[in-house]
Structure formats: structure tokens, C-alpha cells
């Protein structure tokens, strides 16, 4: 089924409706805008929790708080939602926004066909542009190419170091928690859900009963057992709707403080209008990130987590909002849980373990490994009876993602890839058979890997090589696989240059890069970050990799990159940042503290190969009390230090990043 014709129609309807609804909205606005906005969470809650909630909305995603859900207003299917399904506004004040957007009508015929789609809220997909799937011509060669060149991204020699490489990794975990929780719950009856279930079961109770924590926990336990049993039953018998499918009941975070109120349909409708307006306006806004110390997520995440949270011993005061590092020592405990975690596909499990152990590092490598694991999981996937592939698979992927996040926070690039995958799943034509759908998805993943990473890197090589001249002294920091490829490519082109590899404790990944470069016959100079001012005199170009680039031009990369860029700037040496466009993100960040990833603090006190550095070995307890070790993984380089960003769209100044982010997002839907 090609939804294309519907687009035009729906757009038309949308425009017509816009005019009408604007008037309506304005009237409402003048009535009591303020109170209306106040009422939003309550109304929504009522929508979710009235005992009459239809049981045929079994997907967890539908009710996920989805604070980051993209606007769906011109997707007809989503417009057929009942207004209560539309996510709540993020900021109350935004309700006063001037525009209105569509409500239901036009999409009826579609939603008739897809009765279930209505309840699906693809909260992570970037779905507001409806478009036909691209033809899959050329898939075979593409994936072949991908396979052959993937070797680049996997490096076997990293196993020694438990710390993982810096060039990847942006913690999306916090942002994603609501969804991933939902997704996990789709399969695992977990606390929050059973809590809800409990509430539903005893619906005489007020919605947010003031149960104590202990009470709730006890209830959860019993509920969990009951739930597991009933789920097993459901899977066997295949009762429509699934016996325990109270999943939509998952409460939005706002619920926490909003007392339950009964409200009229009219009210909810009105707010529905407002919400879609707002969604429309905000489709470009990234969701606010949930921080680790956020009260509303803390407890839930802890209960849900597979891994034990390390003790908060000697946590650096300034970084309490970030999750502590989970190191490889948890590996055995996770391994022992293998059979409990039967929901996780072995491939995903393996990747998770690799993240945890630090064997797999580097933004591209991690992203590719994750996508390939998903690919395998999709191949082995079969839709449970009475479920649709779209929804069930999405929740399954969500479960995988939350598992991976627990092993190590995701990088921005991985978040983008997951977003892509989810949007692909969500927009699978329903007419496809399961095997066709699976093939489509697998080839989509291949295409993503190929176009966004492998081919993008090739383009970057070409661009960057034009900036290398004979006699140059190129400086690079840490170990970026793109930069490494550039250097080798330029060497193959016969350019005569020298490479300065700058390294820093505790990762010391420059040594591995150095080894690879020297073996290939490049002449290198190796030094440590502190000596950067000493070597910078001779350097003519600085090449840096990046984990992500934010839309204010900030380069988020291995810690130390900012220092290198700063010194280069002070010495008037051009700084070239090489980064694939799929790593761009629309977020903004000014410092390296609000958002970061913490490494293993104990890695600091040891220096590999230096037995003489053992000052911190035998500390008394009193000494330990005062000492905090901080191992940051990333830092944010201000855009004024960056001369140019080399990306697959060409060489751009940092000010053009938001442009690429905008354009890129459109295109990436079309992939």
C-alpha cells in the first residue's frame, strides 16, 4: 500500500481544518487559556485511567509518556487518535501558541484499515513526514559492500583495556527512559506496570492512592508473579488483546503530582486540539533530557535495571546527575542472568556484554554492532499470535535498547540509528507479510549502515584528503576511525606528511592508533596531551573525530579534544573535525558538565606500564573520604575553535550544523 495519495489529501484537509480550528482555538484561548493549560495533565490522566479505557489498545507505546514524541499532526493515521492519546505538552506556556493543527477527520479511511495504528504512538520515530519506502534496488551490492568494509570499525586489539573508546557514546538513556520502560514492560511484567495493573484491578481505589513504597513493592511482587503466569497463558491461548494487556495504563510522569479528576469529553477534546498545535510547533525541539538524578525516574530505573548500580562511593559532587560507571566486574553477574533475560536476543546480549566489557568502542563500531544485532534479532523474530509485527517489534527493540543502555549509555549516533529503525518499523506497509517485512527491515538496516556510515566515511575521506598537502604535519588526538582512514588514504595517495598522535591517560588509545599507523609506514610522532603546546608549533593541520555535533556547533567528543582545539586555535592552526552527518544532533550544549558520561574512576589511579606511579594505592579510609576521582569521557568543544567540519555533505562551518540537521532529518526519513 502506498500512502502517498493520502498525503496530499490529508494535507488538504489539514489546511482546511487549520482555518476552522484556529478560530475555535482562539475562542477557547480567550476563555481561559491559563486554566486550560493547567488542566492538561489531569485531563490526560483521566483519559488513560477511566475504567472504560478500551481494552483494544494493548500497546505500551500508546500510553508511554513519550515526552519526546514527534508531532504527528499531518500523519492521517495518528490524527484519528482519540485526543487523549496525544502526548501532554511539555511546557504549559506553549499551550498559548498561536497555531492550531489538525484533528482527526481526514484520516478516517486509513484508520479504518488500520484500526490498531491509532493506538500506536511511535514516540521515537520521526514520522511527521509520510513517505513511501524507497525502492530497494541495489540492496544486495550495498550490503555486500557494507560487510566488506565493516572490518574497519571493529578492532580486535581493544580487548585489553576495559575502558571503552571515547569517540562514540552519547547518553540517550535518560531521554529514552519512558519509552524503554514501556517497551520492557511489554514483555516483562515489571513494577510500574503491575502497579498500574493493580490500580486498575482495584479500580475502586483512587487513582494515585497514597500507598507507601513498601506497600507498593509488596504488591508488585505478587502482581509480577500473577502477571507472568497470565502472560504465559495468554501467549498459549492467544486471547484477543492479550490477557494482561493493561499496558496502555502506564502512567505519564506528570501523573505523579496531578490528582485524578473526572472531566468531560469536551474538555479533553479541546485540549487535544491544543496539544496537536503544540506538537506541530515543537517538532524540531529535542525532548528535555531526563537526568540520572531525576526523582521521577530514579526509582523506576533502579527497580528495572538488570545490572546492579555501583555504590555511590566518592561520587564527584558536580556529577551526581550522571549515572555512575558500570565496569566489567559486573560481567559475571550479567552472564549469570543470561537465562533470566530470555527476552534479549543472544546477539543483542552479546553486544551488550561487549559494551560493558569495553571490548567494543568507537561510535561507529558500537552503532554498527548494535544495528547488526538488531538485524539478527529481526531475522529470528516471529510475531506472536494476535499481535501486529509493527507494534510488537517496536516494543521488542525498545527492550533491547534499554538493555544496551544499561550496559553503557548510548551515543547520540546510536540514538539517531534507533530512531531511524523505529520509524522504519512503524511505517512498514501493513500489506506486507511477516517475512517480507523482516527482509525489508534487514535491508533497511544494511542500507543505513552502508549509506550513513560506510559510504559517508568514504566521502569524508575524499573531502579531507584535499586538505592534506605534501610536507604537512597533521595532528590527531585519541583514536578516531575516520581520521585514521583519512590518514591512511592520504598516505595511499602518496602524500608526504607526518602525523602527530596525541594521547592522554587513562584511555591511551592513541597508542593503538600509533601502532596501526606505524605498521602502515606513516612517520609518526607520539606525545601526550600536556605536551601539546610544545608540538603545536610545527603542526599545520589538526584532524579530530567527534562523537556527536550539536546544532549550536559544539563538538561533543573524547575528553581532551577541546583542549587540543583550544591550543590549536591559540597557535592559529586550522582544526578540521571529521564526522558523519548521522551523528549530528539537534540538541544544544554549552559545557561538558550538564551532560556527559563517567568512566571508571579507578582507572585514573593506575597507569599501565608505570609501576612507579602508585601514590594512590594504599590510602586510608580517612584519605579516601576526601578524595574523589573523576574520569570524564567526553567534553564539548566550543564552535569558535573549529575551522571546518568535514562531513558527508561536504565541508561546512560549524554554524551550518543546524542546517544539516534540518535537511538531514528530512532525507533520513526517505532512506
Amino acid at each position, binding site marked *: 500500500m502506498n500512502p502517498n495519495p493520502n498525503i496530499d489529501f490529508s494535507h488538504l484537509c489539514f489546511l482546511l481544518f487549520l482555518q476552522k480550528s484556529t478560530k475555535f482555538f482562539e475562542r477557547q484561548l480567550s476563555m481561559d487559556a491559563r486554566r486550560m493549560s493547567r488542566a492538561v495533565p489531569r485531563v490526560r490522566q483521566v483519559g488513560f485511567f477511566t475504567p472504560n479505557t478500551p481494552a483494544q489498545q494493548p500497546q505500551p507505546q500508546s500510553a508511554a509518556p513519550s515526552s519526546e514524541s514527534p508531532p504527528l499532526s499531518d500523519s492521517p493515521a495518528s490524527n484519528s487518535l482519540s485526543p487523549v492519546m496525544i502526548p501532554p505538552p511539555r511546557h504549559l506556556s506553549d499551550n498559548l501558541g498561536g497555531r492550531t493543527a489538525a484533528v482527526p477527520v481526514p484520516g478516517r479511511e486509513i484508520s479504518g484499515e488500520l484500526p490498531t495504528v491509532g493506538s500506536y504512538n511511535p514516540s521515537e520515530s520521526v514520522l511527521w513526514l509520510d513517505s513511501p519506502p524507497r525502492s530497494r534496488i541495489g540492496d544486495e551490492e550495498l550490503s555486500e559492500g557494507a560487510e566488506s568494509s565493516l572490518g574497519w570499525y571493529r578492532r580486535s586489539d581493544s580487548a585489553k583495556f576495559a575502558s571503552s573508546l571515547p569517540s562514540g557514546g552519547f547518553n540517550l538513556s535518560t531521554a529514552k527512559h519512558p519509552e524503554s520502560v514501556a517497551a520492557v514492560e511489554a514483555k516483562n511484567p515489571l513494577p510500574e506496570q503491575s502497579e498500574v495493573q493493580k490500580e486498575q484491578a482495584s479500580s475502586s481505589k483512587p487513582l494515585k492512592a497514597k500507598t507507601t513504597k513498601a506497600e507498593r513493592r509488596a504488591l508488585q511482587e505478587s502482581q509480577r508473579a500473577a502477571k507472568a503466569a497470565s502472560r504465559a497463558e495468554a501467549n498459549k491461548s492467544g486471547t484477543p488483546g492479550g490477557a494482561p494487556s493493561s499496558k496502555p495504563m502506564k502512567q505519564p510522569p506528570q501523573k505523579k503530582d496531578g490528582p485524578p479528576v473526572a472531566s468531560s469529553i469536551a474538555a479533553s477534546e479541546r485540549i487535544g486540539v491544543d496539544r496537536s498545535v503544540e506538537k506541530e510547533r515543537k517538532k524540531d525541539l529535542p525532548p528535555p533530557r531526563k537526568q540520572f538524578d531525576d526523582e521521577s525516574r530514579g526509582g523506576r530505573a533502579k527497580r528495572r535495571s538488570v545490572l546492579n548500580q555501583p555504590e555511590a562511593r566518592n561520587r*564527584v*559532587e*558536580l556529577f551526581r546527575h550522571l549515572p555512575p560507571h558500570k565496569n566489567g566486574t559486573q560481567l559475571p553477574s550479567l552472564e549469570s542472568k543470561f537465562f533470566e533475560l530470555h527476552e534479549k536476543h543472544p546477539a543483542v546480549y552479546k553486544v551488550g556484554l561487549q559494551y560493558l566489557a569495553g571490548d567494543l568502542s568507537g561510535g561507529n563500531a558500537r552503532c554498527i554492532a548494535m544495528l547488526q544485532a538488531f538485524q539478527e534479532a529481526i531475522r529470528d523474530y516471529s510475531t506472536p499470535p494476535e499481535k501486529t509485527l509493527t507494534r510488537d517489534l517496536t516494543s521488542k527493540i525498545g527492550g533491547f535498547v534499554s538493555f544496551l543502555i544499561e550496559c553503557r549509555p548510548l551515543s547520540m549516533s546510536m540514538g539517531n540509528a534507533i530512531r531511524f529503525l523505529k520509524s522504519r518499523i512503524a511505517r512498514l506497509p501493513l500489506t506486507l507479510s511477516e517475512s517480507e517485512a523482516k527482509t525489508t527491515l534487514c535491508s533497511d538496516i544494511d542500507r543505513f549502515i552502508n549509506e550513513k556510515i560506510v559510504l559517508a566515511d568514504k566521502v569524508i575521506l575524499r573531502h579531507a584528503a584535499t586538505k592534506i598537502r605534501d610536507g604537512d604535519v597533521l595532528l590527531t588526538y585519541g583514536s578516531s576511525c575516520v581520521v585514521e582512514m583519512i590518514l591512511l588514504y592520504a598516505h595511499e595517495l602518496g602524500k608526504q606528511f607526518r602525523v602527530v598522535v596525541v*594521547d*592522554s*591517560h*587513562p584511555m591511551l588509545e592513541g*597508542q593503538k592508533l*600509533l*601502532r596501526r599507523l*606505524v605498521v602502515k*609506514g*606513516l*612517520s*609518526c*610522532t*607520539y*606525545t*601526550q*596531551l*600536556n*605536551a*601539546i*603546546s*610544545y*608540538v603545536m*608549533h610545527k603542526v599545520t593541520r589538526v584532524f579530530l573525530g567527534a562523537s556527536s555535533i550539536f546544532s549550536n556547533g559544539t563538538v561533543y567528543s*573524547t*575528553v*581532551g579534544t*577541546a*583542549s587540543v582545539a*583550544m*591550543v590549536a586555535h*591559540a597557535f592559529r592552526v586550522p582544526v578540521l573535525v571529521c564526522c558523519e552527518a548521522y551523528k549530528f544532533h539537534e540538541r544544544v550544549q554549552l*559545557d*561538558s*558538565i550538564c551532560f*556527559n558520561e563517567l568512566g571508571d574512576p579507578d582507572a*585514573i*589511579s593506575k*597507569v599501565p*606500564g*608505570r609501576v612507579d*606511579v602508585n*601514590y*594512590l594505592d594504599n*590510602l586510608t579510609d580517612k*584519605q*579516601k*573520604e*576526601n*578524595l*574523589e*576521582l*573523576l*574520569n*570524564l569521557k567526553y*567534553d*564539548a568543544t566550543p564552535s569558535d575553535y573549529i575551522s571546518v567540519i568535514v562531513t558527508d555533505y561536504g565541508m561546512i562551518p560549524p554554524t551550518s550544523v543546524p542546517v544539516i540537521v534540518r535537511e538531514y532529518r528530512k532525507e533520513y526519513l526517505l532512506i
Partner: protein
Amino acid sequence: MPDTQALVNDFLNKLKKRKIEGSQATAKQTAELLRSVISQTRMPYTNQAAALIHSVKAVGERLIAANPVELAVGNVVRRVLHIVREEDLSLTTAAMAGLNLSAESDDEDDTDRDNHPALSAAAIAAASRSTLRPPSLQTLLEDVPDSAAVPHTSSSGGDSEGKSKSADKSSRSRKLKHDVIEAVNELIQDISTCHELIAEQAVEHIHQNEVILTLGSSRTVLEFLCAAKEKKRSFRVFVAEGAPRYQGHLLAKELVTRGLQTTLITDSAVFAMISRVNMVIVGAHAVMANGGVIAPVGLNMVALAAQKHAVPFVVLAGSHKLCPLYPHHPEVLLNELRSPSELLDFGEFSDCLDFGSGIGAPLLHVVNPTFDYVPPKLVSLFITDTGGHNPSYMYRLIADYYSADDLVLERRTTSGN
């Protein structure tokens, strides 16, 4: 004086092999060595000051050549020379004034000399002051190019010396040596107590809840921070570890032992953290006359980051670290490369380090410098044992400690080569 010779050779060896860690230790040992050199010097009948200066210079040149990067050696040699000149001058002035010498046997200090009772001989006092103050036009004009031969003597000084010698030679010859040794003792005392003097000023600069960043380890910084801690200031310290020597670990350990809230960060995280830091306090290896700092490696990066975030960059330096030279290309010329083994494991990279690419040049270089040069514009404040100073004032401060004649000590060796 075989005794001194052995001492000198021993110290030379230590310097050459870089056995002495830290400029304070070096300065102290240099001063002690020079003291024994002075005490062993046989005083000639005439022109004793010149003889002393000659012997000190001869030893000093060798010491400097042994470790030209350790500027503290040169500083101390110049200080001692300055002391000799000053003592000689003070004696001369006293003799000229016709006052009895015994009354002022204990007068050695500049300050004392300034309110010397011998003010009646106004002309001579003025002349003596002109020789004391190095950058005076008169000294520059009248000075003989090879100042080693005729030590401090400007024309008037020479005259006065001649007269005074005739007055009472015997007491003067004992007196000069004695006074010089006394003064050198005081210099040694100064060097070893400079920490306390600097640390006394800590409370003036550290306020409650301050966040301080430092890199590597410096005894001065440690004392400074602890002094503030003792005054019941509570503050937090970020210590960057200072690779490749990782002295920061040592400092962090010392600080936590004394109960300071300390966070050890990697050097690479300095830029990330500096936005939350109120002040950067670091030690120096040497302070040049232009206000530039020769500092442990990595500090230029820290200073740049501090400047970017408008964080004050404070350098603590004892007066023995003040060097009267103006640096030229100090990043290279006043630097020293340490062993690559601190960065790379020879075992792992031995094949790369020596296999050549056709032309025989090794493919892999490892650069491990010891020092960084921080230009004066990046320094907010110097705190020395005499108080806080701007970088632009350093040249003047330095003029108090050294005489202009001694600025270039290596003249003879260079001409000899």
C-alpha cells in the same frame, strides 16, 4: 683547595645526571656549595672582592653549563655575586665615611645600608647607590665590557676602594669574607623558608567555598593550600594529574591526608572542568624577567583554558626562581626532553622505534618535554615571598636581586668556544 674541588665535581655530576629534583633543592645546594667555595677562597692582598667574584663565577659557569635548563642554579650564582658586590660596596662606603668599622659589623642588608649613618659623605653615597642600582646610565656608560676582571668598580668605587684599603686592610680582608658568608647563609635561609612566606598570603587569596585547580605537584602550592585550610577556610581542589609524571597523584594524596576536599581529574578534563573553577594556582619552574613562566608541562594548556573562561591564573614562585634573563624561544631552548619510556613501553614499540624507512630515519618519534612556557599575558598574578606582583612588574623585582654586571655569566665560555 682539593676539598671544594671534589664538592664541586660531585655537584656537577648530580646536575648533569639530573639527580636533583626541584628548583628549591637545587637552589639550596648551589648556595651551600658556593658558600664553601667562598670560604675556601684564598684572599689576595688587594682587590679581594674581585677575587671572590672570580672564583664564584668560575664555579658558577660550570654549574650552569652542567644543567642550563635548571635556571635556579644561575639565579643563585648571580645572587651570590650580587651579595659579594654589595658587601664590598658597603664596606667601602663605611670606610669612606670614616666611621669605625666595628660599629657596623653586623650590617649586611640593603635596607641597613640605605639608612646607613654614613650619609654625611653624600657624594660617595650617591656614587655607591648608582653602582648598586644596576640599570643606571652611569654604570652602563662607565662599565668596562669585561666586568669579570674589574668586579664592581665604577670609577668612583675604584677610587674609594684604593683609599680604604690603605686605611685598614687587615680588618677588611677578614670582614668581607665573613660578611659574604653571613649573607649567603641568609640567602639559604630565605630559600628554605620561602614556602612559609608565600603560604602566609594564602588567606588573602582564597575565600570560603572556593574551587581551585592545580596541575602536577608543587611543594609551594601544597603549603599554600594547607595554610588556607589551617585558617579554617573550606574549599575544594581539583588536581590535574600532570602526565607523564603523574605528580598530581602525589599532591592529591598529600591534600587528602591534610583533610582537603580533593578531586583528581585527568589532564584532558581540565578544559571541561575549568568553567566551574574559581582560581588556578600553580607552581613554577622559573619566572623570566618578562613575566613569562617556565612551568611543568601542560600548564600552557591550563593557562589558555583559564584565560578562555576568565579564571585567574596565579603562579607561586619563591624568589630563587626569579630569573633575570629574557627568554628567547623558551619552549625549545629552555626545555628538556625526558625519556620516551614514560610514554611508551619500549617492549611494545621497539620495532617501530628503530626500523627505518629507506632513508634510515626512524618512523616513530616520541616527544616528552618537561616544561611549558606560559607567556606573561596568560598570568594574572605572581605570588612571591615578597608579595603579589603583576607579570609586568617582574623585571623590576628582579633588579632588586641581581646586579646588571652578572646577567651574562657565560660570556667567557662562549668567547672561549
